[in-house]
């Protein structure tokens, strides 16, 4: 039995970041799947503040919040390569900045564009594109945000490679245009092809069914 356990939900992109980090670094772990509509008492005990996945349990001690967990993994298994964060403090600050930018701006806006319709969707898409432009510029001359290998910021943005095409198929809208964002689309391909990444993706048809149902529920709840 591994001394590392990861609480996750099969469809959620946040725990998937942790799966990638553990796999890429070759750290042994046990996976515990949560049903988010019926959370286990263990999850509620280990993450009483947010009651969410992912939670990493290491030697019985819980760590929550995906970016906090990624830093913990990097610091605890220092000898396991590849490093997720560079050694130089300025480069580390940049990696942390882009990761936070992704979670604070890109993810919520793409999600909005996916679950809304009409004018709300248009506005969310415009705002998403305004912000994605910065990412496109940042990718100039780079294979990954981390350089030659997948790093902290790449893992944080990884959901784009995994979920954008799923969202586009369900909502029938182009979220990331290959003409406007060629570098981003190349990055998504490179990310998918990086070692250990695609092997851990949930099956596409399952994701489509799950997010289609979720979108329909959310649209039905919208005030008319």
């Amino acid at each position, binding site marked *: 039995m591994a001394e590392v356990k990861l609480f996750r939900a099969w469809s959620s992109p946040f725990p998937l970041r942790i799966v990638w980090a553990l796999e890429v670094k070759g750290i042994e772990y046990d996976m515990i799947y949560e049903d988010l509509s019926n959370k286990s008492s263990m999850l509620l005990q280990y993450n009483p*503040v947010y009651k969410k996945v992912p939670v990493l349990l290491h030697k019985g001690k819980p760590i929550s919040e995906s*970016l*906090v967990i990624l830093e913990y993994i990097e610091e605890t298994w220092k000898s396991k390569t590849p490093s997720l964060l560079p050694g130089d*403090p*300025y480069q*580390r*600050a940049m990696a*942390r*900045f882009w990761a936070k930018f992704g979670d604070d701006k890109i993810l919520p806006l793409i999600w909005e564009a996916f679950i809304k319709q009409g004018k709300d969707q248009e506005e969310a898409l415009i705002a998403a594109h305004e912000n994605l432009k*910065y990412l496109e510029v940042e990718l100039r001359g780079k294979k990954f945000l981390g350089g030659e290998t997948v790093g902290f910021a790449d893992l944080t943005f990884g959901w784009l490679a995994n979920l954008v095409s799923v969202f586009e198929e369900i909502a029938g809208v182009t979220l990331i245009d290959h003409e406007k964002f060629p570098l981003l689309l190349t990055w998504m391909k490179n990310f998918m092809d990086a070692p250990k990444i695609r092997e851990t993706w949930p099956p596409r048809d399952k994701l489509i069914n799950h997010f289609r149902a979720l979108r329909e529920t959310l649209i039905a709840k919208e005030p008319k």
Partner: protein
Amino acid sequence: MAEKVVLLDLWASMFGMRVRVALAEKGIKYEYREEDLKNKSDLLLQMNPVHKKIPVLIHNGKPICESLIIVQYIDEVWNDKSPLLPSDPYKRAQARFWADFVDKKVYDTGRKLWSTKGEEHETAKKELLEIFKTLEEELGEKPYFGGETFGFMDVAFVTFYSWFYAFETFGEFSMEAEHPKIIAWAKRCMQKESVAKTLPDQQKVYEFALGLRKRFLGE
């Protein structure tokens, strides 16, 4: 090479204050530049094009943005004195988790106290008190959030102390009555020169917030 450190900031920003406390803890000399957020300088727009926000630390010409990222950067570069993050990875994770909690919860809920009215205002007040309760439980009997010494999480939260009078007045509650442990902790932090010299007077901050309220509610 002489280090050149510039901070673009706003005197009342609890986020900017975090950086000022960290710089003071480390004894770093820097140039402070006050920004007018209604008329942002070219330098700010150039150094933080993505968010166009303060604080921005410019170290030898290179910008770092986002207050907690800046504080970590300061801790890593000037690592010869006053460490802000502990050395143990688990304790570091706890410090980051709680600092992130403050970021996610305190500001957005707190600002509703001056930017909303009626039911929304009441809900915000209840939520804020719950948030402070959670923080108080986390503090427990420890002198600081980090344990025996002042650290990262203390830096992240103590700057909000300068806004307590504003919260209390707009929210119509008393922090001392509701959350005495937090007040005791804040006063303990205020005994440190880095904190006492950085945090502005609570009355001045309240007047600043009144100005914000006028803009939001048109009163």
